[in-house]
């Protein structure tokens, strides 16, 4: 995402030392000692060291690293389930480490909801009661919270399961409840700690897909933890790579893959089969029909109705893409007795090269969901990508 985007959470110089007398750990760190040496000398664990990053409004930020790299510690410092040893975490102007107990409670209720690796559903509460939990403790009236919880259960595809108990559901469904519980709360930030890591690979792909859709629909600022690079590449707008409690690289999935910051990142991405990074080419379909620049509005209308389209791309004789005509505009032009369509096509659609990564396409679909045009360097129309095809292709890639 772009730098101009507004910052939701600003994290600066965040460090965490586990053990009694954590300041000692920071001193040793400042003397240049690393995690294992500090542990050997003092028994203190340097969980996180000098972490700097921003979470942008509306993005899905992935924090990735091997087990023990400090991911859970980092995400728990954000809402102070773990007390940071030093550093700033600023959300909407509030510095979280400075908050009093009461302010912290308020901050957690307003800003954060969390999804856990092993679901952490309350086993004595029904699905509906689980989803209501966040609202209930905030004192939201009974009807209102029931309504909101039902809505969020519907969003994750669990309508009809309200009265079930969590242990009656499969793992995938349990985590949907976890997600619904988080969404119902309507907090500004969603924290997900290895939320899909406990699920079967197939279910996991489905959940990633659904999270992507939800996220694009709701533009919910999300911090997502994973140890799985494929998952990170699939869903992340940006990825932060963590190693031994330090950040080694921050970047888009493409940047991580194409410009690995150091050997560690390189080794991390070695396992990724580059051919499996899906692009627009994978999901592209041939164009069913195009209009020619000298077609009259009546011809264009007929082409659309014959092919069941409600919009059509206009190309020049060399198949260069000129614009898009919508059925209403063509209809209007016919009624006004116009002889050509040059005045009714527009450029208000997304246009990508064939190598554009598939997950970038999501954000490009406009409200009217025009197919995305795929063009070569000379702007010749190669094909189109419709929304469903992106999902289908991504889902399929999970199967092998």
């Amino acid at each position, binding site marked *: 995402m772009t730098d101009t985007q507004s910052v939701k959470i600003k994290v600066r110089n965040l460090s965490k030392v586990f053990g009694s007398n954590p300041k000692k750990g920071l001193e040793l760190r400042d003397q240049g000692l690393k995690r294992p040496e500090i542990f050997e000398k003092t028994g203190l664990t340097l969980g996180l060291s000098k972490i700097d990053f921003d979470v942008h409004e509306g993005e899905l930020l992935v924090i990735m690293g091997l087990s023990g790299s400090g991911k859970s510690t980092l995400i728990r410092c954000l809402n102070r389930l773990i007390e940071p040893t030093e550093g700033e975490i600023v959300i909407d102007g509030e510095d979280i480490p400075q908050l009093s107990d009461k302010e912290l409670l308020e901050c*957690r209720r307003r800003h954060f909801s969390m999804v856990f690796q092993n679901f952490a559903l309350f086993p004595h509460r029904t699905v509906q009661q689980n989803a209501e939990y966040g609202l209930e*403790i905030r004192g939201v009236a009974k009807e209102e919270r029931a309504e909101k919880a039902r809505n969020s259960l519907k969003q994750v595809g669990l309508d009809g399961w309200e009265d079930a108990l969590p242990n009656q559901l499969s793992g995938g469904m349990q985590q949907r409840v976890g997600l619904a519980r988080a969404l119902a709360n309507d907090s500004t930030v969603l924290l997900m700690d290895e939320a899909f890591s406990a699920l079967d690979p197939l279910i996991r792909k489905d959940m990633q897909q659904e999270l992507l859709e939800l996220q694009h629909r709701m533009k919910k600022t999300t911090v997502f933890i994973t140890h799985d690079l494929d998952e990170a590449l699939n869903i992340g707008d940006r990825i932060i790579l963590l190693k031994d409690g330090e950040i080694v690289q921050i970047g888009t999935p493409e940047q991580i893959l194409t410009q690995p910051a150091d050997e560690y990142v390189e080794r991390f991405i070695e396992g990724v089969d580059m051919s499996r990074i899906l692009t627009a080419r994978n999901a592209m379909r041939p164009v069913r029909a195009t209009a020619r620049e000298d077609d009259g509005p009546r011809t264009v209308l007929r082409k659309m109705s014959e092919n069941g389209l409600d919009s059509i791309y206009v190309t020049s004789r060399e198949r260069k893409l000129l614009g898009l005509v919508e059925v209403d505009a063509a209809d209007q032009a016919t009624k006004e007795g116009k002889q050509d369509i040059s005045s009714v096509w527009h450029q208000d659609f997304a246009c990508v090269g064939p190598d554009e990564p598939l997950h970038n396409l999501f954000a490009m679909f406009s409200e009217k969901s025009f197919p995305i045009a795929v063009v070569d360097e000379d702007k010749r129309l190669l094909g189109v990508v419709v929304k469903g095809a992106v999902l289908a292709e991504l889902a399929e890639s999970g199967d092998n």
Partner: protein
Amino acid sequence: MEFPRIPLGQWIEGGLDFLTSEYSVVTRAISRVTQTGIEALNDSLMWLPEWVLMALIALLSWKVAGTRLAIGAAAGLALIWNLELWDPMIESLTLVVIATLVAVSIALPVGIAAALSERLYRTLMPVLDFMQTMPAFVYLIPAIPFFGIGSVSAIFATVIFSMPPAIRFTTLGIRQVPTELIEAADAFGSTRKQKLLKVQLPLSLPTVMAGINQTIMLALSMVVIAAMIGADGLGNEVWRAIQRLRPGDGFEAGIAVVILAMILDRLTQALRK
């Protein structure tokens, strides 16, 4: 040179003397209240015709545990009645119920507090070990100077002896709640009270009930022993049988204790589920 014997017993007696003289107002008040409670419960249980109480207990058993316990309970109680041990049985039951109520109402808050405070936990656990491993009838001795011979002393000793499991299991139950659930409750911004009422207590309930079950069993065994300091009930029947060397009477009373214990045990175990 010989090392002198430590006068531990004298010290304890001195302490007890001090307590009984200084706090006699308190102990007498407690004594009066407890005595009234015992008599009230005892009288109302006695006032019910035997078959009504039998039917009520059978009905309760059927509700919480099913037909088998209902039949067993009815048959057992009928046997007690037939052996003419009904009144002593009621007296024992009264003592058990009151001692358990007192023990549980102290144990729950203490157990919760110990679960939430590491420091209290560390000081409390050795005390509980002490309370539980001290031979049961040692408690009977200090009870007498405090509350005199009789049922109140029996309740006092019984409460002390039977309380530890209820405290222990309450603490255990709350500490056993998975950290992830505590984290979830915290992450959504629960206050300590909300966390306790909505997550920790409901999830520890089966464990707490197991503790209460043990408390009841210990209370029953203590109430029988308390016959030595003049408590009424089935223990008294056994005691008399010993003094008169009548093993038959003693076994009859003993069987009545077993029946009562089994009914109470199965009932409270069924309540856990």
